[in-house]
């Protein structure tokens, strides 16, 4: 409990900083943000209206204050382009991103963990070397490389899957693979290292000595302990997964929050940009908190922060 309170209080400062930084974004626009957003042809009345609407004619501190108050009421302001409340667009787009990220996570785990176990059991044999080599190199490849390559192979050449869009259920497979592969590569390495470490422990020798089958020793005794650090890795990787959605959604025309971000940048719809950045960053903060709590629940040895 004490841990949670401590954690939450340090989190509060981070969240405050995140809010401040996203708030300041719009003030970093070179020149007059209103002119940049509306274009030079906009009438003086339109400009004045937008300026008043965004509160840009008020002192900075007051602006930040009202920004916070609005946010706490779930009000992200409205889009300059469509004039609709941003919260509605986010509500419509966010589930698609979550769906994609969760599927990518599942793919990453279901490829990475078994491969890691396999590599650990075959440690220093050629199978291990191949798996490790592939996973090390694969994790270095960015989404904007992997995505087009998968698209080229599975959609254009083999024709098995749709190129892009969200029309069929199969549309999610390629973007999810793009995101999941990188994660699986990292998980393979981590599972291998962590399992190898555990396999040298005394209690594993005991388990073997009392005549348990190799399967029981690995799955029941070794894997349980070995998977603990994996929780942290998965949590940390959720961050790059979330950031990766921006690129992946753009490649595959997946209508999630990442694509919304890129679209808003192209239209210079800065309030929407601001809201998207904030949503992704806050999601990351929450995922990290959940990971930390889960880790502590899973490992009885870690009690205090």
């Amino acid at each position, binding site marked *: 409990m004490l841990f949670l309170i401590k954690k939450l209080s340090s989190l509060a400062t981070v969240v405050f900083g995140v809010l401040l930084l996203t708030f300041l974004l719009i003030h970093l626009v070179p020149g007059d943000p209103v002119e940049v957003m509306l274009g030079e042809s906009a009438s003086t009345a339109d400009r004045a209206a937008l300026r008043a609407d965004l509160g840009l004619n008020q002192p900075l501190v007051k602006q930040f204050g009202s920004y916070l108050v609005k946010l706490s009421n779930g009000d992200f302001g409205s889009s300059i382009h469509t004039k609709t409340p941003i919260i509605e667009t986010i509500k419509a787009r966010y589930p698609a991103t979550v769906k994609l990220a969760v599927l990518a996570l599942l793919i990453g785990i279901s490829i990475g963990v078994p491969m890691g176990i396999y590599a650990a059991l075959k440690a220093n044999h050629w199978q291990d070397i191949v798996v490790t080599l592939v996973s090390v190199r694969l994790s270095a490849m960015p989404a904007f490389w992997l995505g087009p390559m998968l698209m080229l192979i599975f959609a254009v050449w083999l024709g098995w899957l749709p190129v892009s869009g969200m029309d069929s259920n199969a549309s999610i497979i390629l973007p999810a693979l793009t995101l999941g592969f990188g994660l699986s590569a990292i998980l393979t390495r981590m599972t291998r290292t962590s399992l190898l470490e555990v396999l040298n422990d005394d209690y594993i020798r005991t388990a073997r000595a009392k005549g348990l089958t190799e399967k029981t020793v690995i799955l029941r005794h070794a894997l349980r302990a070995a998977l603990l650090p994996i929780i942290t890795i998965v949590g940390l990787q959720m961050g790059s997964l979330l950031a990766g959605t921006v*690129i992946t959604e753009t490649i595959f025309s997946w209508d999630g929050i990442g694509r919304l971000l890129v679209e808003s940048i192209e239209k210079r719809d800065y309030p929407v940009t601001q809201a998207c950045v904030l949503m992704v*960053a806050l999601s990351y903060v929450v995922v990290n908190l959940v990971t930390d709590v889960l880790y502590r629940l899973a490992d009885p040895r870690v009690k205090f922060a």
Partner: protein
Amino acid sequence: MKKFATTILLFWLAAVLLGRLFQLNPNAINLNAILSTPSFTYLLGADDLGRSVLARLLRGVEVSFMVSITVTVITMLLGVCVGLFAGFYGGKVDRVLMQITDVFLAFPGILLAIAFAAVLGPGLVNLMIALSITGWVSYARLTRGQALGLRNRQHVLAAESLGASVPRLIFKHILPLLTSILVVEATYSLASVMIAEASLSFLGLGIQAPNASWGAMLRDGVRYMLIAPHYVLIVGLSLMSLILAINLGGDYLRDKLDVRIEQ
């Protein structure tokens, strides 16, 4: 591993120099050669405006190296200064600075760089600013951790008791011990800045047309994938060779130099 990395890097270096020597023009448009497959005139084919893919790849890699080296130097200087300061003084200074880095780290991956590039507007200089604002954090963290441990080492304490000034302590007694770690970190950040630059250019936030960049070429390749798959494939394979080579080189350097200091 080392051979492979050096070969690839030297290959690209030679290619860039040869391209300059033969004065390949990355912006020469030939409307008769639009999206043409590799041939004798266009060794790697032509893009959607009939420009030589080879010439554009070479100019792209030049710009890419220029950006990553500049950004790496700026972020390293900035991050190391902050890190040394925080690690040396500790206490309140340290806490405040680390809170600030925490805020930057709360934005996953290149999200913050995307946000900065978005508001600053596209272009080479803004791209480098965006990448520098967000890139110093990892150096600050790394340096701070090391400096914290080195601060109370006996040779530092001895120098301090002999009356050495703070700059002397920091620059003569602490910083030299960090060199190898920073060199290794720099190779990795070279690769990651390169990827970040390409990502931003891919999203249309980085280097602007008609200037060549690998990210933008990859995006065009995706756009014309159905009619000219060779374009995206060539750009993709080139990018892969370069990233692999830099990473392998980084691994090699790390194995050679890694003398991480226990905290």
